């Protein structure tokens, strides 16, 4: 029974965070957390306010090999189905050629305010010239907006950055249902020279951290 009295509730949450509750009591708290805002707030309060105490345990080098075990467990749970050509530079050459054709067909006018975007990218399907996504980057934020593109039913689009000389794409985020993705607090300056791609993924995004579905739109970011 989670108490209604705020003082009792806070003390109970404090005991929970301290690890003082027995298994049954702790389970009761965990079951109540999703539905009880006040309790969740109290648990967060104690986790954050008591956190400086954690510094009393001196940092220590973990034994070697732990990261390798973590990595292989994740890999076993989500085997990568990365298409081989992702690691091959050749497709990006024809992509660039395709983009040149698209750029010729599209005059993009962007007024750049002093604090505005540093980069713009237009993504299209390799076989088409019509833009499917427009991406702006600058001031630690990337905004991608779908332009007439929607994922297949039950799937989602995910946006990736591909850097020169880096073999693996970096996930930037899943495009929400409204077609607009904002990636905040991102060091956009490293995007100079990068290409972008959109792949089709399960609703929550790629389970592996790398593209698993077909890549449907590609394009290069241009500096403004």
């Amino acid at each position: 029974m989670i108490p209604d009295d705020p003082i009792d509730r806070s003390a109970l949450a404090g005991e929970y965070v301290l690890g003082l509750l027995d298994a049954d009591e702790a389970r009761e708290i965990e079951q109540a957390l999703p539905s009880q805002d006040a309790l969740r707030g109290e648990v967060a309060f104690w986790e954050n306010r008591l956190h400086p105490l954690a510094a009393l345990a001196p940092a220590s080098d973990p034994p070697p090999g732990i990261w390798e075990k973590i990595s292989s467990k994740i890999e076993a749970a989500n085997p990568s189905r990365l298409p081989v050509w992702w690691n091959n530079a050749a497709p990006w050459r024809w992509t660039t050629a395709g983009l040149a054709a698209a750029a010729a067909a599209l005059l993009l006018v962007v007024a750049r305010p002093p604090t505005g975007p540093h980069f713009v990218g237009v993504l299209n399907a390799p076989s088409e010239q019509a833009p499917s996504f427009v991406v702006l980057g600058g001031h630690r934020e990337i905004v991608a907006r779908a332009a007439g593109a929607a994922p297949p039913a039950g799937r989602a689009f995910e946006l990736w950055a591909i850097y020169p000389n880096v073999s693996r794409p970096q996930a930037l985020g899943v495009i929400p249902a409204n077609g607009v993705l904002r990636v905040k607090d991102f060091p956009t300056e490293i995007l100079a020279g990068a290409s972008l791609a959109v792949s089709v993924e399960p609703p929550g995004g790629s389970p592996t951290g790398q593209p698993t579905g077909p890549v449907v739109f590609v394009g290069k970011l241009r500096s403004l």
Partner: protein
Amino acid sequence: MQAICAGTVFPACNGRRGFVRNAMADHESDVAVTALSSAATLVEAVGRGSRLALKRLYDLESRRLYGIALRIVRRPEVAADVLQEAFIQVWQNAGSYAPERGAAQAWLTGIVRFRALDAVRKSRREVLSDDPALGDSAEEPDVIERIGAAAEAGALRRCLGLLDDVQRRSVVLAFVDGLTHSQIAERLAQPLGTIKGRIRRGLAALRDCLES
């Protein structure tokens, strides 16, 4: 790497160049993720499915978190298992991390502490009060001085100073050493019922003070 930063006019890129290049030499690394260095940004990137962000988070946080686990479980092989399970849980749960609810480091600490408490209590290896390992307990007279000097630590240090000795030592023994009510009672030579009541009153007083 040079292809990205060479000739750029962005100061951040120039400032980061040496750091990124070193990281690239150490392990295959995504330039972008390597450049993301705060725990919060990395946890959010892990939530978006970036394994490289998880690796970077491990590099940044594993010594601190292993120390926390080791303090509670006291056996290196158990602490290693705790650290491994905790990072797999981070991988699975990072998508639900909400920055507005608190600092990423506190979130990570919470995962490791609860994993460690589970491990130590499942093993039923009661840490007895005459266990020599308890000789290096965090619960020492100068505990208040040893809490970090950071701003968020200041309030906690001040408020712990308002508790009585038993209350303050109990909070530290529970949070840092992972002791149970009965272990704390034994350690501080107090009846179990008394300890429970004093910790509850101590938490109420601590909350009043931390909020003010």
